[in-house]
């Protein structure tokens, strides 16, 4: 319970922001917070709170998994740091690059291949797999 106290502000913020499927579990001295949101801003805010409570995420006592990626059949914004997002032939960085989407560009999410990779189509018609962490619900 101590960890839930430590990260209370984060948990409360997740609840207040309406994070769906929110799960807060403590196991072997690590707190696991999972949930989904359709807002990239909510995810960023929760990560900011995490960084405030535990500067530079040094403690290793929280695994925060907030999924703000776009659902299949919706549009997603490319939220890379600044670079282009590679679109690949298959789900994996070992797969050939078939195209690129610019930072901030909006793409169509066709389906999710797995937890990490989504099949997308760019406005220029390139279809392939992109890393889901860089796709935020538009």
């Amino acid at each position, binding site marked *: 319970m101590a960890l839930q106290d430590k990260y209370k502000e984060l948990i409360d913020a997740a609840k207040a922001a309406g994070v769906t499927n929110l799960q807060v579990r403590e196991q072997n001295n690590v707190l696991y917070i999972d949930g989904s949101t359709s807002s990239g801003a909510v995810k960023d805010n929760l990560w900011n709170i995490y960084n405030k409570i535990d500067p530079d995420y040094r403690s290793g006592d929280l*695994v925060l998994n907030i999924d703000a990626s776009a659902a299949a059949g919706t549009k997603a914004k490319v939220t890379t740091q600044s670079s282009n997002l590679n679109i690949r032939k298959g789900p994996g960085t070992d797969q050939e690059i078939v195209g690129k989407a610019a930072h901030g560009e909006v793409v169509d999410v066709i389906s999710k291949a797995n937890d*990490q990779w989504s099949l997308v189509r760019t406005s220029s018609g390139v279809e392939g797999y992109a890393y889901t962490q860089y796709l935020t619900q538009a």
Partner: protein
Amino acid sequence: MKNTSFKLLIAVASFTAVSYLPACKSKNTSDKNADSAASQLPDTTVMTDQPAATGGPVTISPDDSLSNNLKDATKDFPGVTATVNNGEVTLTGTVSRDKLPKLMQNVNSLHPKKVNNNLTIK
């Protein structure tokens, strides 16, 4: 010999009677105590079962899938090395502070048991 056994029998019988009869009485009270303790137990049980109530134990990815997914998760962070041991991901190397949240978000989404951030932050 016979006399000794008889004495022993009496001793055992009287000891049993002495200890058992009040024990009966006190057993009732201790039963009541046990009952009232039991009536508090559900709370305790709920507490320990809390993980189940919120979706069961946490699923941790196996090491081989973590290692594989870490290649993708850390690809855009040259200078960062990620190793896996028994579900624990350890990050070493160097990263800039503005890139750290994205790196941590990528790694945290892989269902690790724990993330050890040993990075040097510029």
